[in-house]
């Protein structure tokens, strides 16, 4: 009857929940050291911007097939990863669930936490065979959530997802930055992250969905704040990252300046939201100004993407010039 609880794993909700989870797991295992914004950018997560046409809260996590995006994140960091996921209603679920419980426990035995869709993404940092439970950190409360082995993967969404990590190879910093720019371009140019679903837009197109929803006035009030917070947070992360990265690629200074300007426009977070009924909603009076900020932001990002592109084309990109035999979409 074994019990393992990993200490030193600190999951805190500051960025996208996957990024927060990834950061906790990797820093806890010594596989990454550095500020969260750097991990966010190098893993490609920072650049991701996805919006549902009605600004539903799921916008922030509906950025594509998680298996693909999160494997890409690990690949770009040089870290081995295994992801598993599916729909709980499919007949094979129970088998995969039991399998996942096993390999997560073995990951914990090796001292590595695992990422788990609660929802949102959290970190499994311990297990106890006697109680048949996992300890999961959700980044909000200091106390871990408890998930029974038998309930692993079952939640109010139709999906389950888990991911663990392994060894690491060194990838040159310059290569990692280059790959980050390329992931940013990939996301910018992908209008719909989960086709054929067109109710969610990503990258450049996400702007038009966001603006349109605000203009129409028909949107989920909690979701709108969440999308806005996530947007502000991620664009700030990109700014810090580019400031650093321009030391390696001086051409990036111009892109960093775009994001600095963008961050400047979004200052004073209180300006955009009001507290109501124990939660926050977008302040009605600020919406026109918010729309203005978004329109300006889109132009700034477009310029930054142009800078990324001009740097990217200077170096060969074997990965993107070869048609793969995986990814882009996972099993339906």
């Amino acid at each position: 009857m074994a019990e393992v609880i990993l200490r030193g794993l600190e999951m805190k909700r500051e960025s996208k929940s996957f990024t927060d989870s990834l950061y906790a797991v990797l820093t806890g295992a010594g596989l990454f050291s550095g500020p969260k914004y750097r991990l966010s950018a190098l893993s490609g997560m920072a650049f991701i911007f996805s919006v549902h046409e009605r600004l539903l809260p799921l916008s922030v996590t509906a950025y594509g097939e998680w298996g693909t995006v999160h494997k890409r994140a690990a690949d770009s960091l040089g870290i081995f990863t295994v992801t598993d996921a599916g729909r709980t209603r499919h007949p094979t679920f129970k088998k995969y669930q039991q399998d996942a419980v096993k390999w997560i426990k073995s990951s914990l035995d090796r001292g590595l936490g695992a990422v788990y869709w609660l929802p949102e993404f959290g970190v499994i940092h311990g297990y106890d065979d006697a109680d048949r439970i996992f300890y999961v950190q959700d980044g909000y409360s200091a106390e871990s959530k408890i998930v029974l082995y038998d309930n692993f993967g079952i939640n109010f969404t139709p999906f389950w997802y888990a991911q663990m990590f392994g060894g690491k190879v060194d990838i040159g910093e310059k290569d990692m930055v280059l790959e980050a720019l390329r992931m940013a371009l990939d996301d910018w140019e992908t209008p719909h992250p989960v086709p054929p679903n067109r109710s969610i837009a990503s990258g450049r197109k996400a702007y038009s969905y966001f603006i349109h929803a605000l203009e129409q006035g028909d949107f989920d009030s909690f979701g709108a704040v969440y999308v806005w917070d996530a947007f502000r947070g991620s664009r700030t992360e990109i700014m810090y990252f580019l400031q650093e990265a321009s030391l390696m690629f001086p051409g990036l200074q111009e892109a960093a300046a775009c994001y600095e300007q963008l961050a400047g426009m979004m200052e004073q977070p209180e300006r955009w939201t009001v507290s109501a009924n124990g939660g926050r909603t977008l302040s009605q009076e600020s919406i026109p100004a918010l729309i203005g900020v978004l329109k300006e932001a889109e132009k700034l990002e477009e310029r930054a993407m142009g800078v990324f592109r001009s740097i990217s084309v200077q170096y060969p990109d074997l990965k993107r010039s070869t048609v793969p035999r995986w990814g882009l979409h996972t099993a339906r």
Partner: protein
Amino acid sequence: MAKTILKDLRMTTESRSYIDAMHAVLTHAGWTSCSKAMLAGMTVTGFRFAVHRHLTAESPTAYNWVAENFLAADFMGVTASSSAGFAFHPTFPLYRQEAVAEIKASLDRGIGAVFWKDCFAVAAGYDDEEGILYYDDGSGHGLQRLPYGEFGQNRSPYWYYQILEDTVELDPIEIYKESLMQAIYKWETHDRMLPEADYACGSKAYDAIKQALHGGAFDPVQAGEVFECYAAAKRDVGEYIGVLASLWPQLEPAAQAYRKTAQAFLDVLGLIAEDPSMKRQARNLVRLFDEAQRAEQEAIGLIKSFMHERIRNRFDHVGLR
């Protein structure tokens, strides 16, 4: 230091597709007694039809192996895990190590594993002392040797393996019906992974073939290989729908339509034997592909009306269960 060689795990090639490998593993494990044709239908792989616009030899295996081969197993109620990547990626050595470990573990459980060696092959054994895997790629050379360190080093830049793990009982009628839904999906949907500028899928694959034959921008040797693979696939599908028609007589015309398609492909192969350059017979070849396309379109139309209720209820995404 361990050594394991699974007895009687051998592979033959027909369509030179994943099915050849999957069939070998599942039959050896006692998890199916179906023919390859039935397997091709139930797993939907037989219905997939995609070509590079220059009819390159890799066309029949140009698809998302991780997703589609997973689904192939899933549709059959077989749980599987797999992984794939570019061999030139810096993380490859980490994945190679894991791949070999997983394959060996599967062999220890008495189940062969599928992997890519410029074609789908079956790992049938290993020897730690020599540091090799034993595999069969259906080429008729029996068990061949692959040093662990060479796993994933292929002419094509990909590595891939799939472990088939266990079975779950499924209602065969549901498997058949789902395969029909997926067949429609394959006919009508372009594979996201393949850039449309270079590849065509489903019904449009026929158009691309006809265009290539007209324009002459292709290597006839490679094109011939492509047509051979798909001829086997169409034959399998015809057989499969024929079996379904014995259950559901309304499907008999669809079975006949597929048989027509299969016959057209056979005729294509006949013409190619006569004219390997495909120049003289180009017009006849185009005519045959046209026939094949019309017959297959007819078959899909019949399948659609047979499955109309379920199709409607899947709204935009006929492939999503």
